[in-house]
């Protein structure tokens, strides 16, 4: 590892003791000896296993639920449905006022995606829970479902969630997040070339080696200790507190040891129902996703569609960029309205473009609700932007790296969402990449600087 001290030499502090050094992780010795304690590496006497009964349909009304056979099954201690949940609203981002309250902990009257949680079965052994879960009878009236964002946005499409009233999240700005900068149509009119391309991604599953889960132990004083592999300890504690109508001081969360997550363990899904089960049974409760649940049920990175229309000059300047982004939230919002918003702030990318129009939509379909994953809201957008940049360079016969130098943002440039650029380093990164990849560019680009007063 080499620290290139010549970049930003006038503003850097040196004498770094840790940055740039290889340091062993504190938890590695535990990992190689098997001593690291993941949440499931704990055992509690009398522990109950929670198995979730899930919707087999993409979209259906629940006519009735009959848990009587399941409740009688040997080894079953409790069976929970929507009515047992004190505040049956599952709401990740309510704490930062992103909302909305469009999802339940256990389905109430309707299921909107295949795999939605309907009934929780608690039993002495995993096998007894599985057998009892098979005995739960749910009577569904199957409804028409929609799986494609464009279909979902057409008039007459099946309505995924009555809470919203339409198949997109309504921002305070309207049907999408909007950024308007300059005059795109004038920019397009003045451009030498126009390029409009559409980019698409499928949902991507994090597939951590350790599946999502928690163990909840009642402490005997109305307090519960929840051992969990959530990435979001305080989110989870606060949301559990809201869902259970229980003061946060009654909840003690132990975690931070996660067998991989990559954004897949921020949904606060398993803890509230497990804590409720521990409260209602007075016994420790273990709720862990099976591998199938981890792959199919747990939220993936949202599928996205990005349409980019650019106006570019022969000399390499992009003079107008219009981006329309669609995020497939699946059946419920979770983090997606926030993700689509992030996208709006991220486009048009690290480039200074005088005319920009951005619309980002958060769209509902009857797919598995999507959520956070490694830079969500931005990562797929970057794929789209950078492929577009390569195509533009090819269109005007320019080297793709040199093309980016011409358009790169620098300190002081106004971004499309009206924040001045600060701390830009794209130019320096590309100069280093040019060297490291042996992809030479013209001297004038190697002399450029992110400081506006430079070349």
């Amino acid at each position: 590892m080499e620290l290139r001290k010549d970049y930003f030499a006038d503003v850097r502090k040196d004498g770094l003791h840790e940055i740039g050094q290889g340091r062993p992780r504190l938890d590695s010795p535990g990992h190689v000896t098997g001593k690291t304690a993941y949440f499931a590496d704990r055992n509690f006497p009398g522990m109950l296993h929670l198995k979730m009964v899930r919707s087999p349909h993409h979209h259906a009304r629940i006519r009735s639920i009959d848990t009587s056979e399941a409740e009688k099954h040997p080894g079953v201690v409790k069976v929970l449905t929507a009515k047992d949940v004190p505040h049956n609203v599952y709401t990740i981002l309510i704490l930062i006022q992103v909302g909305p309250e469009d999802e339940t902990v256990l389905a109430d009257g309707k299921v909107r995606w295949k795999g939605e949680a309907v009934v929780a079965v608690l039993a002495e052994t995993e096998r007894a829970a599985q057998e009892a879960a098979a005995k739960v009878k749910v009577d569904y009236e199957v409804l028409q479902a929609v799986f494609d964002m464009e279909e979902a946005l057409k008039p007459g499409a099946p309505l995924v969630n009555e809470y919203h009233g339409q198949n997109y999240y309504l921002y305070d700005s309207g049907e999408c997040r909007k950024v308007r900068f300059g005059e795109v149509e004038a920019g397009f009119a003045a451009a030498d070339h126009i390029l409009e391309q559409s980019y698409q991604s499928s949902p991507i599953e994090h597939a951590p080696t350790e599946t999502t889960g928690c163990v909840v132990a009642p402490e005997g004083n109305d307090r519960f200790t929840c051992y969990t592999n959530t990435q979001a300890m305080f989110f989870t504690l606060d949301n559990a507190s809201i869902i259970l109508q229980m003061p946060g001081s009654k909840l003690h969360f132990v975690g931070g040891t996660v067998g991989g997550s990559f954004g897949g363990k921020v949904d606060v899904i398993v803890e509230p129902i497990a804590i409720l089960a521990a409260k209602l049974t007075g016994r420790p409760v273990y709720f862990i996703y099976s591998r199938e649940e981890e792959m199919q049920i747990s939220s993936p990175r949202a599928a996205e569609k990005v349409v980019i229309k650019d106006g570019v000059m022969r000399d390499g300047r992009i003079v107008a960029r219009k981006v329309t982004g669609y995020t497939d939230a699946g059946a419920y919002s979770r983090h997606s309205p926030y993700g689509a918003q992030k996208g709006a702030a991220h486009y048009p990318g690290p480039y200074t473009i005088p005319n920009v129009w951005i619309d980002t939509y958060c769209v509902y379909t009857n797919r598995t609700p999507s959520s956070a994953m490694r830079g969500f809201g931005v990562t797929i957008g970057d794929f789209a932007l950078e492929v577009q940049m390569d195509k533009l360079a090819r269109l005007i016969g320019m080297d793709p790296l040199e093309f980016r130098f011409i358009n790169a943002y620098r300190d002081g440039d106004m971004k499309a969402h009206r924040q001045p650029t600060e701390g830009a380093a794209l130019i320096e990164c590309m100069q280093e990449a040019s060297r490291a990849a042996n992809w030479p560019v013209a001297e004038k680009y190697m002399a450029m600087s992110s400081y506006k007063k430079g070349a």
Partner: protein
Amino acid sequence: MSLALQTFSSVKDANAALQGAGARYLGGGTLVVRAANEGDVSISSLIRVDDPGLSQIAVSGGKVRLGASVTMAAIARHHELAALAPAARAVGGPAIRNMATVGGNLFAPAPYGDFAVALLALDATVVTEGGEMPIETFFADRDTSRAIVTAVNVTLPKAESFRFLKVSRVKPKGVSVLSIAALLQRAADGTVTSARIALGCMADRPMRALATEKALLGCKLTPQGIAPALAAAGEGIAPITDPIASAWYRAEVLPVHLGRLLLS
């Protein structure tokens, strides 16, 4: 209720137990224990036979008798079974190969069952207490028969006449997109005089590529020579769709991989 395990010292004794509802035969466990883990509560008891005869490998006169409990690892390291080693090595990773049995592979539903694909091309016979049958008959009766497989008999091919290919997305080991086994006899001038070609993942169990076999007869293994065979590759196939690949994809790439195998 909890899963019960019954161990018998002979297949004869196990037969009665296997007739019970919810009883499944336990070989290496790679399919059956997996199903129980995944919540298949229709499995209530596992029946296994620890007769050491089931784990025997007997080679004589160019043929081998593989006991039903012989593992993929045992085949892969057997010095006289080099011809079968590529197919055995294609199954799972090292630990799976220590556990997975010949018998189990015969029952494995697509996308699994790569070794059984090889056995089909090799015209193996399957032995139960009731007698010996061609492997095609075994596959046809697989869903309904309750007979325990005790061994598989197969003629060992000459190295140059047997080819095997497993295609997976994950390298070096992963679940099959498809697998192909081809037993070809050729005349001195290289023309194909007989062909048995078996396909995996092109149905829910291994199947013969009969149209392809017919189209290869009298042809040389050159790009032009095999063209008719590749054109016929899709006849009779109903590939599976699963998280690995769609039926459409499997059908699209089958002639490509078949061509590569035949020209290799």
